């Protein structure tokens, strides 16, 4: 083994390939880290700003109380004008696979109106950049590592044949399996190290938690091992003496596993589990919200009071407009949309489930998916994030309803006690 490694490391082309791989891995980790720290910095900034803005809001929107002693703010105005910030906080290991984090808004504003009209706001990302894809560790491992394996192991037998040593070697070997095994293992070790070393270094510098680190290392080692074995199987066939043919064959396999099959699977997936386009939710939501203005107020309030009987006996709405009725129809639109939203969520989960099944067949998908699990940047994490927003919105509504329905203004003290996304344990 030791001699194998020295033999390998004496070749200049191999050294340069390994250095290139090290460099790219380093860059991919750095790039992921920069992206995630930008997101974290923006979230911190937004959290800081939110406190200031809320104080500012109270000053601007508060009126003198009835006795003239304490300034209060109207509950309806609070619901309509005050934005609450929600965040999609990255995990510790999110830099390893950016996944869909680049398209999901990581800072979003929510107010007390219907949630479905606000949940799907887009982020101001550069669409061309997202389309080209992120240069993260997952990408490099899935796409580039196999190519490195192919470059290093496609000509095991053929290169010896080329140097006219093959027959000589074969006559010397007592256990060929042992001999070739060592060759393959030494190559695998070097390739794995070019991926694992930067990760280890990175984890040490930033003192990251060890459990995900172990998983990342294990996934990396397994994946490179699979490709090394695959390449070895092809390059050690009995008549594998044409290195070029081996290279082309292995590149074709790479092409199938990294591009063609995942694409075909996606096509099948979208066909098998059709998803209602989100725009239909937006259109329907607008229709429910705005048609309520043209309906008698009881059409909104009766079903609303059926959901919230505790406010049933509050003073009735008689005038042309009342915040009670306004927030009730905003909420009722969400309630009516719920089946549609749940169905979409269900489809997304089914798609994710099917992907996880496919991942058992396609190693490339398996690696990408597992790294995204560690990085918390898969579609399931998006759904979890949406659920958190929903929960926060509910907490917010429940905190505001007493003031809206009992027609009490909020004092500075009440205002301070309004929940935030952070305080509800939602982030």
């Amino acid at each position, binding site marked *: 083994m030791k001699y194998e490694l020295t033999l390998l490391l004496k070749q200049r082309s191999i050294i340069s390939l390994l250095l290139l791989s090290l460099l790219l891995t380093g860059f991919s980790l750095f790039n992921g880290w920069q992206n995630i720290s930008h997101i974290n910095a923006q979230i911190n900034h937004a959290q800081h700003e939110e406190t200031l803005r809320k104080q500012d809001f109270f000053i601007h929107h508060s009126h003198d109380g009835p006795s003239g002693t304490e300034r209060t703010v109207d509950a309806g105005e609070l619901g309509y004008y005050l934005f609450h910030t929600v965040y999609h906080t990255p995990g510790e290991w999110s830099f390893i696979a950016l*996944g869909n984090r680049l398209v999901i808004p990581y800072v979003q504003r929510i107010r007390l109106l219907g949630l479905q009209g606000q949940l799907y706001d887009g982020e*101001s990302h550069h669409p061309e950049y997202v389309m080209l894809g992120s240069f993260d560790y997952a990408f490099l491992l899935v796409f580039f590592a196999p190519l490195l394996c192919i470059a290093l192991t496609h000509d095991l037998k053929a290169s010896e044949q080329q140097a006219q040593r093959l027959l000589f070697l074969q006559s010397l070997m007592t256990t060929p399996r042992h001999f070739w095994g060592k060759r393959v293992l030494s190559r695998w070790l070097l390739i794995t190290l070019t991926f694992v070393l930067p990760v280890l270094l990175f984890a040490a510098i930033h003192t990251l938690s060890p459990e995900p680190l172990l998983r990342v290392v294990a996934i990396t080692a397994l994946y490179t091992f699979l490709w090394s074995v695959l390449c070895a199987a092809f390059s050690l066939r009995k008549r594998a003496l044409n290195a070029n043919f081996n290279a082309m064959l292995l590149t074709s396999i790479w092409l199938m596993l990294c591009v063609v099959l995942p694409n075909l699977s996606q096509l099948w997936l979208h066909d098998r589990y059709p998803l209602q386009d989100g725009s239909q939710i937006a259109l329907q939501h607008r229709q429910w919200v705005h048609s309520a203005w043209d309906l008698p107020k009881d059409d909104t309030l009766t079903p609303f009071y059926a959901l919230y009987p505790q406010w049933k006996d509050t003073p009735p709405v008689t005038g042309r407009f009342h915040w009670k009725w306004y927030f009730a129809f905003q909420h009722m639109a969400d309630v009516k949309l719920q089946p549609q939203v749940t169905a979409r969520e269900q489809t997304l989960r089914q798609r994710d489930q099917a992907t996880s099944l496919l991942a058992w067949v396609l190693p490339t*998908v398996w690696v990408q998916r597992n790294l995204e699990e560690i990085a918390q940047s*898969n579609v399931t994490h998006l759904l979890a994030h949406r659920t958190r927003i929903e929960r926060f919105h509910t907490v917010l509504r429940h905190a505001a309803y007493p003031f809206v329905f009992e027609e009490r203004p909020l004092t500075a003290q009440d205002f301070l006690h309004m929940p935030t996304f952070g305080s509800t344990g939602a982030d």
Partner: protein
Amino acid sequence: MISLIWKIACNEWRKLWHARVPALLLLVLVTLWAIAALAAHHHWQDHARTVAEVTARSQHDWQSQPDRHPHRVSHYGDFVAKPVHPLSVIEPGILDQSGHLVYLEAHRLNSANFNPATEATTLGRFSLITPAMIVQWWMPLFLIMIAYATVTADKITGILAFMRGNGTPGWAIAGGKWLALFLPLFLLLCLQALLTLAWSWHSEQLLPRMAIMLLAQALYIAGWCLLVVTVSWFSRQLHSALLVLLLCWVCVCIIFPRGLANLAQITHPTQPRAEAEYHAEDKLRTIGDSHNPDDPHFVAFKQSILSKYHVSQVDDLPVNYQGLLMQEGERLTTAVYREQQALHNAQLAKQNESIRQWLWLTPALALQYIQMAGSGNDLPHHQDFVRQSEQRRYQLIQYLNQIHTFKVQQHDDKNTRVSADFWKKAPRPPVALASLSVSQPSIIAGFLVLFGWLLLPGSLLFKVSHRL
């Protein structure tokens, strides 16, 4: 002389045909192409259906509004879907990433929402296989596998030296070899272009769009053919020719495009949208607050209105003062939001600029820019869509505010409802696909790089083919 080149090319084809493997590879490439066309067509159809559905439903919802107060209608708002060009079948570009629906309402500038990329599963992270991708990635790869040996093999067997000894000029050999590789691929490209033309005959600006795509594809493939012949001529061993070419391919097609885009993103990161919205609101507050009776801007505005109509108080105005306030407010908010949008566009432009500085590294990305521009799926086209829908929003809201001003009685403002006929006549011009000229900078940059891409290996080949 031309006949000499042609003879060498014919000879090359015979050799490739007898080798069997190249013909097989070409067959695989065409199969992949067919799969890509199928997948892309499916994808496009899905998208076009969504756009048609949204447009129809939005139209229906708008037209079936009852009598309403005009300000209600301006909050009811309007939905605009992004138009898709049929050439998206070749290159869907940012279709999945950009969002295809904008909600137009009063006092707000909404983002383009609903992009499938957000809700994609892990499979979405693997790049989409499209006809454009086939030309950009896979055609060069197959070309390398088919032809890496083209000159090196002749060198090893001594045929090259023999030919040169017989007085065949080096450039003729180079030209013949190049032609033998380029012509079949060029014919395939032309076939694709012809099929696409026939399929999407009546779409707008089809010819110029298709023409730049075909030209860029031809230049790109011509460049790769030159590179393959050049490297093959330089190499002494078949194996090194293959490995060098594959390394070039990995860098040009996979590493550089992603690397450049990611570098641009980390050097010029974008602000989150929520932050921009807060900024806009802060700015609006400093300009004027129509709810505040002492606000200097609106006090002056009121004075100017009163003196215009020669009355002393608002109640005596012949028009609805609330409507006038709405118009003024909309004018102010729109100016601020447009300024924010311009800032955001400037941020993106900065990223694009930094990518373009390094574009010469990767002709694959240059080709992609041109193909995206050609199919109407690049950033400038998207920005034009956002701009057009914003114009439509402003026009529509101001029309509604006009109705508020002139058709709603001031003393009974809140209880008035205006006839639904006014909504039916509202100006809602359809949002059209931008003209090709919006992407002029990226098209020019792309073509410059592609020409350079021809020159560099071309001059190297010229040099090496003269060597004896």
